């Protein structure tokens, strides 16, 4: 089966290799250096992350169905019409997952054949992340476009897996966010099928269509524009912290349920695949800015409790799956604390102080991705300074 190097199929060898090594760990042995090796490889590492994302995906599918039927006014309680919601969610979400994987892996294979490199496993995770951080109504052609953009310009131009500067999935989301803002924000996208419903129907069903963040952002404007003239209390009467924690809120497919995210986090931390340093400091960073904004509050948004900040929007998802991407994060342990903390702090800062971007997590993480090498540079410089100092004390 293996294409010989002199046959006309030779240039497809990376593709064959990709499928073969997927099925079998090859019999390749160590030649020198350490004769035994750890059982882990990149495939298993990536698979663990995909596994950790499954609870988010499952919850996202159901949640998509739920908010669709809320918008149409057919379902009131969360567990009503369980089967219908599930089927609706599957119909909406699965095509996005399939398109994301098919397009992304297609691009990867093209580059592997062109460069004659073995296919690397990075996209296994990116392919799952992309669907989870976009609204369920995103048209499939947009998903495909964004995926191509992210894989080619986010990753392949830098040399492929392990070489990228910014997170692939967030690159795809940022592409959609800036390229098609009406499909990625506002109040027409967060409940699946909402754009087909008339304004009257929505009003009759008591649905605004905005996410919590969109509603909260109105607080940053003049009082006349507030969605809740009653201020924060009116907001919290509609959205309780517990609802947000469980994920019974509209939002991107996989980001809503903190519970599902925590299950994934537990797996990643327990297996040691994601850095607890980054996760912890990211949450801390967000929390601290939450407290600070409480202290200097001049509008109801700034009064929102720090804990509430952590469970709404994409903060939890970003903390567990996005900021921890080892390729784009700081690589030194000290750097990881700084990187995570600043990431979390910036997320909440953008959220609270910039009404134009209701969700700050994507911006903050992309920004920190770019800053990570700088953080590492200073951490490593400190190490170098210690070494030069030792040399100087000796010669002095």
């Amino acid at each position, binding site marked *: 089966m293996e294409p010989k190097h002199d046959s006309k199929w030779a240039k497809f060898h990376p593709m064959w290799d990709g499928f073969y090594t997927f099925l079998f*760990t090859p019999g390749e042995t160590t030649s020198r250096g350490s004769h035994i090796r*750890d059982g*882990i490889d990149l495939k298993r*590492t990536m698979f663990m992350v995909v596994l950790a994302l499954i609870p988010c995906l499952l919850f996202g599918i159901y949640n998509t169905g739920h908010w669709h039927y809320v918008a149409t006014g057919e379902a009131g309680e969360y567990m009503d019409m369980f089967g219908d919601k599930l089927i609706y969610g599957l119909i909406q979400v699965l095509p996005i997952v399939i398109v994301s994987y098919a397009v992304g892996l297609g691009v990867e294979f093209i580059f592997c054949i062109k460069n004659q490199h073995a296919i690397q496993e990075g996209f296994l995770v990116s392919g799952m992340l992309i669907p989870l951080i976009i609204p369920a109504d995103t048209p499939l052609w947009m998903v495909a476009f964004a995926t191509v953009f992210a894989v080619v310009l986010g990753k392949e131009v830098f040399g492929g897996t392990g070489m990228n500067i910014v997170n692939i999935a967030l690159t795809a989301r940022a592409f959609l966010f800036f390229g098609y803002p009406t499909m990625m924000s506002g109040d027409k996208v967060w409940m699946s099928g909402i754009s087909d419903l008339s304004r009257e129907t929505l009003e009759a069903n008591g649905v605004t269509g905005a996410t919590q963040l969109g509603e909260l952002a109105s607080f940053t404007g003049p009082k006349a524009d507030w969605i809740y003239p009653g201020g924060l209390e009116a907001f919290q009467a509609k959205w309780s912290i517990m609802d947000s924690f469980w994920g019974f809120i509209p939002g991107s497919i996989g980001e809503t349920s903190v519970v599902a995210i925590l299950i994934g986090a537990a797996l990643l931390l*327990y297996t040691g695949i994601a850095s607890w340093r980054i996760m912890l400091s990211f949450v801390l960073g967000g929390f601290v800015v939450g407290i600070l904004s409480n202290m200097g509050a001049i509008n109801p948004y700034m009064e929102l409790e720090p804990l509430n900040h952590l469970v709404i929007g994409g903060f939890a998802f970003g903390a567990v799956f996005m900021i921890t991407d*080892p390729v784009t994060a700081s690589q030194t342990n000290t750097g990881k604390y700084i990187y995570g903390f600043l990431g979390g702090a910036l997320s909440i800062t953008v959220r609270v102080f910039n009404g134009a971007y209701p969700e700050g997590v994507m911006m903050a993480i992309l920004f920190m991705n770019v800053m990570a090498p700088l953080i590492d540079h200073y951490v490593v410089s400190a190490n170098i300074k210690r*070494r030069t100092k030792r040399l100087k004390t000796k010669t002095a």
Partner: protein
Amino acid sequence: MSRTIKLRKGLDIKLVGEADKVKTTTDHGSNFAIKPPDFHGLVPKMAVKVGDKVKAGTVIFADKYKDEVKYVSPVSGEISEIVRGEKRRILEVRITADKETSYQGFEVKDTSSMSSEELKSHLLTNGLWPFIKMRPLDIVARPEDQPKAIFISAFDSAPLAPDYDYILHGENEAFQAGIDALAKLTDGKVHLTTNSDSAPDKTFIDAKGVQLNKISGKHPSGNVGTQIHHIDPINKGDIVWTVNAQDVAIIGRSLKTGKFDASKVIAVTGSEIKNPRYVRTIIGAPISAVLVNNSIEGNVRYISGNVLSGEKVKLDGYLGFYDSQLTVIPEGDEPKFMLTKGWLGPGTGKFSINRSYFNWLMPNKKYTLDTNLNGEVRSFVVTGEMEKVFPFDIYPMHLIKAVMCNDIDLMENLGIYEVAPEDFALCEFVCTSKINIQEVIREGLDVIREECM
């Protein structure tokens, strides 16, 4: 003055096949070899040709660029073959040994009354010099250097490592004689570092003229590089010499008796060995003779040294010059189906530092690991895993990348002078991307040797 160093980072890989504390003597076999590649970077200038008769202690070859450094025959006999590899590089000088070893003796001198220069030339001419290695670079020491200290590790913490407390028990005199000689070679201290987690043998405790240090923790606590880093780190321009504990005794014994006595005790270990134990043998002995009474079946790998930094040898190959251990483990050259033994399998019998396999449930289980890479070579993706097993104030991944892009300034700044390939053995073991890190570090050291030393 002694101090205890506690390491919090490191990793003990528990393997099947630890040697029982039994010393056996086997027929040494009749084929011996001295292998120039054991001495990294050496270009040998041959002093003998095929058919020459040699005695134990006769010069076989010298360093082409430093011809005072001589390498001698461990046994007496006849030069049977000079094996050459690519570009006619000499790989092995094979010697057919006599039944009874006869020695080319040398004058027994009182080392305490010799000057350091006299002692140096005494060691050099009689073939005892190559036992002394230097850091940085991890090569045979250069006679013209003034080392700031000499380091000896009294234990080996690698998987299935030989127990020097056992090997050198009762060798007090030889060991002390070796220490006395080494102390002459430096103006600084001779550091002897023992394992504070166990009671060291009297040979080490009673050693005089050394600074006794203690270190506790997992592997690589027994690596001399780790000890140097925590006791008296190497700065740019410093030279430190290191000698293996058993080689100290060889130096001492040879100086006292006036003959090059290359006999040593090695541990024969590994999951494929039926009766793992200690064997009394001679440097350069054939693997098959060391393995006698340990018939081995199946597809296995023979390693002269330990599983982390040893050299792959063949059954008809020879023990390495510095090695006190022979390890035999299964080869892993069969493809493994993803769901059973491959990357997605439950992974019983696999060992990993991260918990995606279930080995963490059984911290005391001993493993039979094979030589499979357990994956394919990838770019660096995962970060932070090397730091868990690398007890140096050095950023391993940054140093590796500096070597890969051949940035000499950066290598110097990040601490290339303080490391040897074996210090990175565990990093290589845990690397998810399966990169041959020890090879990379060796390349870096070669560049430094060429450009800076």
